[in-house]
């Protein structure tokens, strides 16, 4: 394939990766930024979203588009509820101690994984896309659904941005992020904010998973990679910075796509990993945002 079309393809692929990654990472970034905890189970919320999407679409058995839309609503809500429950039952009792939280969320990861394995099974199961449209370019074909992921993710990111910057909820969240004690002094119910943030973070991951599941598939071990990549995006983007998170997701997604043009796949992954690591080494505060406190 000629260089131009190849670059176009790599860019498109990078954008799809970035779109899904931005949503997943945004969820992690909120939790990380506001609550200052490392949620190792974040990838499992992503997996749950995909598995629930399959369950909803299969149970309904209606037209794929209806099943998909239902999944887009139901899966994030259920995952949000599970996250809320685990926050109440476990994280709050640990008083958000960073180290204890790591162990607790590893425990949560095991529990969710086992439940998915026992109740859903070890197989990878597909979900039919809401529509099948193949965009025919002169050099290659491309999935129309994939392009719609980019749009959907963009819309949700804008919506989240509006909530964070234009509403009282967003103000309260940001206040809690900047200074927990001060927020408390101003009668902000910090505990409720934490619970809400934790649920919202999980819901964003679940939403991203529902978007990806028609082109990927639901599998009980699918949570690990989104988790690792989200961590990277969050740090490169700078804690709690939406702008930074989106930009970092773009950098990671595009570099992954474009580096893969020049090297064999494994070498490309190796180089892309080292490049991103070096960005962090030489700009540890992230591209935007402030130094982690």
């Amino acid at each position, binding site marked *: 394939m000629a260089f131009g079309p190849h670059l176009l393809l790599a860019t498109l692929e990078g954008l799809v990766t970035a779109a899904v990654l931005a949503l997943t990472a945004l969820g992690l970034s909120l939790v*990380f930024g506001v609550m200052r905890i*490392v949620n*190792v189970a974040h990838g499992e919320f992503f997996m749950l979203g995909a598995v629930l999407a399959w369950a909803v679409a299969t149970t309904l058995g209606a037209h794929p588009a209806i099943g998909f839309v239902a999944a887009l609503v139901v899966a994030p809500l259920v995952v949000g509820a599970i996250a809320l429950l685990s926050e109440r039952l*476990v994280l709050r*009792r*640990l008083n958000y*101690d960073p*180290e*204890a939280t*790591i*162990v*607790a969320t*590893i*425990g*949560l*990861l*095991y*529990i969710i*994984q*086992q*439940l998915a*394995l*026992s109740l859903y099974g070890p197989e990878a199961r597909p979900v039919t896309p809401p529509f099948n449209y193949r965009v025919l370019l002169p050099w290659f074909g491309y999935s129309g659904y994939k392009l719609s992921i980019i749009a959907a993710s963009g819309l949700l990111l804008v919506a989240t941005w509006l909530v964070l910057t234009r509403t009282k909820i967003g103000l309260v969240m940001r206040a809690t992020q900047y200074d927990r004690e001060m927020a408390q002094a101003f009668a902000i119910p910090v505990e409720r904010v934490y619970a809400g943030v934790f649920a919202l973070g999980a819901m964003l991951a679940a939403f991203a998973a529902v978007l990806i599941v028609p082109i990927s598939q639901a599998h009980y071990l699918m949570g*690990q990679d989104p988790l*690792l990549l989200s*961590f*990277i995006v969050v*740090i490169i983007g700078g*804690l709690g910075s939406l702008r930074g998170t989106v930009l970092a997701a773009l950098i990671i997604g595009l570099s992954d796509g474009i580096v893969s043009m020049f090297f064999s796949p*494994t*070498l490309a*992954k*190796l180089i892309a*990993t*080292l490049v*991103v*690591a*070096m960005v*962090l*080494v*030489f700009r*540890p*505060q*992230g591209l935007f945002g402030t130094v*982690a406190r």
Partner: protein
Amino acid sequence: MTEASTARIYGLHIAVVAVLFALNFLLPDYHHGLFARILVLATFAMGYNLLFGYAGLLSLGHAMFFAAGLYGSGLAITNLGFGVVAAFIAGLGCGALLSLIVGLLALRTSGVAFMIVTMMFAQAVLLTIVYFNQWTGGDQGLVLQQASRILTVGGASFDLTAPAVRYLAALALFAIVLFLTLAIVRSRFGRVLVAIRENEERTRMLGYDTFANKLAAVVLSGVFCAAAGAAYALLFGYVGSNFASVQYSILPLLWVLAGGAATTLGPVIGTLFIYYVTDIASSYTSAWLLIVGVALILLVLFAPKGILGAVRKRWIGWLP
């Protein structure tokens, strides 16, 4: 620190090693073999604890140091025909070199960025192992044949595949690293590390070179973990890329947190705890991950500072 407490602390550690030595003769076959493995992995956890528990640097990439020792010694045997001792030293050398490079780069960052940078370096190491699969065997890994795992010292030769030899070799490594750790954390250097953990800014202002101290901690930690990796290859005869995966970076963190961070004996207690919970749960049910998950959550709810952390807080305040 008083003479009495020094004697008490060393007495406790000597007693622990003595009990482990006695277990060599008491444990039934399966548990004997499992203990040998746990002692090697507890050494890995002790290496991790030095950096995480004492210096306060949370790394998510320590699998790379274990893998450096594992592959350093394993490849030295399969490709260069090294003997056991030379291979072990090669493993240590690889670990020292890698941890020096990683330390120099990653210590430019701190906090969560340090965590992510170490994770990415470990990922790069894993991909390197996969990429050079013609030599490393990729994820399938390499087997070190029994014949290449015989240790000759002077005129005597020890077959590292014999259960008792293996157990005692693992115990020797464990004991050496345990007492080294104890000596380090009780030394001036160890106290500087704790000071850095508690307040790096103030420690620097007091005139300490915090970067050099942290780098030394990274390298020592890396060498301990590489020693565990090299011992694993030599004692158990298998070298595989799984040990470089992120799972093996999270495991030592888990072992240390479960046993009690910044306690000298916490890592071995945590490793034993997690191993046996898993082993017992998996014989009761195929849904053993669920039990392990619940056990972890109960553990942190009732002992957020780990098992020994709780013991130290409630009963034995002098525990190092």
